[in-house]
């Protein structure tokens, strides 16, 4: 008999209203409905969430760790993007 693993799903949970969904782990499940059920049992046994997203892991496109310099380093020399770059007179510096 042909052996086939259930696909992998990434699980994201909103811990309470007002917060973002946050990645918390993954589960194997044959389809989306079961992925939600499994995620519920595995990741929310103690009021950890009010909403769950499951996404097929193979549908996630991730950045290449080798591309870290091109992608993220340029931000380092653009310190004028941060409010602390601007020195204002003391009286108004809380602006």
């Amino acid at each position, binding site marked *: 008999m042909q052996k086939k693993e259930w696909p992998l799903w990434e699980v994201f949970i909103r811990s309470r209203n007002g917060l973002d969904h946050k990645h918390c*782990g*993954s589960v194997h499940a*044959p*389809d989306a409905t*079961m992925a939600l059920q499994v995620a519920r049992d595995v990741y929310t046994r103690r009021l950890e969430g009010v909403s769950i997203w499951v996404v097929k892991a*193979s549908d996630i496109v991730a950045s290449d760790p080798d591309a870290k310099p091109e992608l993220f380093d340029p931000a380092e020399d653009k310190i004028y993007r941060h409010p602390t770059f601007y020195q204002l007179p003391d009286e108004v510096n809380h602006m």
Partner: protein
Amino acid sequence: MYTQSLSIPDGEAKGPRKVENPDYLAEFNAKIDAGGFIEPKDWMPEAYRKTLIRQISQHAHSEIVGMLPEGNWITRAPSLKRKAILLAKVQDEGGHGLYLYAAAETLGVSRDELYEALLSGKAKYSSIFNYPTLNWADIGVIGWLVDGAAIMNQIPLCKCSYGPYARAMIRVCKEESFHQRQGYDLLLQMMKGTEEQREMVQDAVNRWWWPSIMMFGPHDKDSVHTDSARWGIKRISNDDLRQKFVDATVKQAEVLGVSLPDPALKWNEARGHYDFGAIDWDEFWSVVGGNGQCNVDRLAARQKAWDDGAWVREAAIAHAEKHSVRQQQAA
């Protein structure tokens, strides 16, 4: 957690790249030395990856096999309250196994490969689960001593250098605290009962004490996996953790009103720790080697669960595929 790196061309093995490039290695070592985290798609030395797969999967297997000795008592729990608590605990152990399998999979190994290594005996699990649970007090003592020892071992892993493992361990540790406390609470209640119940508790403590302190593994001088410390996987040594556990447990035994079965157990003022007797390492290695009382039963039970579930796994995937084809046709 992402098990498959999209940047790897087809044909190459899944998981992080295996090129042992000196620049990458220097960068890796610098990250470790700075106390940073390694994430699934980052470059890592092959030996680091293999050590982690071995350790995380053995940990996962331990959780899954650990469901058996306690599951043994679910139908015989003495009250509905204790049954509900035990069910929740055993469900947690299953959950812990799943968090950990998922963490191991991020290193480029499949769930089925991991599981097959358990069933074939190639991968080990904690030998504590090869001891039988003979009376109801065993359930309390497992929570108090076995989970207590596990917590000591696991808290430092919350800061381990591999991100997915560290995150899984944070979740596990939060839940283990419930396990230990419910066990102690169960024993406290039994100690308030009849003489016979108190004897059951003492009997269970006598049987589980030594195996519990063996859980920390061989003495540091005999320990083989020394790279783990350098790589920030294991941050506190076996002997230090064991000492911490013994020191913490003596007082708990006193409050409970039981004795620990070690005549050499004594406070050492100069060391500021409790001294304790010699551990029977022959017994430890014999159980690890497959000669414990329950090794055969435990693996047989896991194998049966795997075989009996095969048709469910296949039917579910067949249903999902059929449904997906129909949806595509309708679209």
